């Protein structure tokens, strides 16, 4: 499966953590393909793309794959923490979600925030830019958060 189109980047931590997130190496799931910044979940002990119903968000890929991974291939991932703000793309104007108006925003399979889906996900929107299409989000639920 091709890596999702849209990627995310770390911005800051609103809980006062001044260190940047750590990058660790974890196992990939079968067929994982990533870009730098692909949002990743962890399931059954292995990393996979964050698509729909993302409740086990773990981090952002820190390397781009050149081919579909074999199960247990090593992948570098930035581990997201409580309070980390990540910047990404919404599929529509997300400005009404600003100020954490809901904290269970979900992903689309292309890696963007699904503005219409505010359940079964893991993201709260801190603020937006660019007519609501650039979103600054905080994960509220994850593999090791919440």
């Amino acid at each position, binding site marked *: 499966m091709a890596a999702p189109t849209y990627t995310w980047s770390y911005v800051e931590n609103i809980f006062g*953590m*001044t*260190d940047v*997130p*750590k990058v*660790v190496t*974890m*196992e990939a799931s079968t067929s994982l393909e990533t870009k730098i910044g692909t949002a990743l979940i*962890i399931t*059954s*002990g*292995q990393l996979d793309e964050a698509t729909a119903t993302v409740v086990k968000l*773990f981090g952002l890929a820190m390397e781009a794959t050149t081919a579909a991974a074999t199960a247990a291939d090593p992948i570098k991932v930035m*581990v997201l*923490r*409580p309070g980390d703000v990540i910047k990404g793309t919404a599929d529509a104007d997300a400005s009404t979600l600003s100020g954490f108006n809901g904290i269970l925003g979900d992903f689309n399979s292309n890696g963007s925030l699904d503005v219409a889906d505010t359940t079964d996900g893991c993201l709260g929107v801190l603020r937006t830019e660019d007519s609501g299409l650039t979103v600054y989000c905080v994960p509220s639920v994850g*593999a*090791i*958060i*919440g």
Partner: protein
Amino acid sequence: MTAAPTYTWEFNSDLFGNRVPVIGTFGLTAASLLKKGTLVSMVSGLIVATTDGTGQYIFGIAAQDIETSPTEADPVKVEIIAPGMVIKGTAVSTAAAYSGFTAKTFDLDVDGRFDPTDTTGGGLSVLRTEDSGLTVYCLVTVGAIIG
């Protein structure tokens, strides 16, 4: 009097940064003996050794021995384990299959070991293992002040 669990734990690293645990002083449950390194829970406002059933209230790691049966609320020093901190301990049996945070609620057994067969009422998640799966590196994902 309840003997201290056989197996102890230690702070290993911080997955969320470069912190080390803060040590605080808290009140003890009556007659609860501890070793330095005993994983402890906070139940009803008092520290008690973490064993089977108190794993969802993990608070920290005992920073001193308590060798004489304490009276309720006697002081004990505890390393407070924060979200993202990795602690190293011993598993009852191989926990290798649970590496990579496969579940969030693993419990301990009566001896203070990680119990890979018990995912009820606990609060540990496995980052990785060593020594044929018998040494576990865990995060506290559900605890007295976590989760």
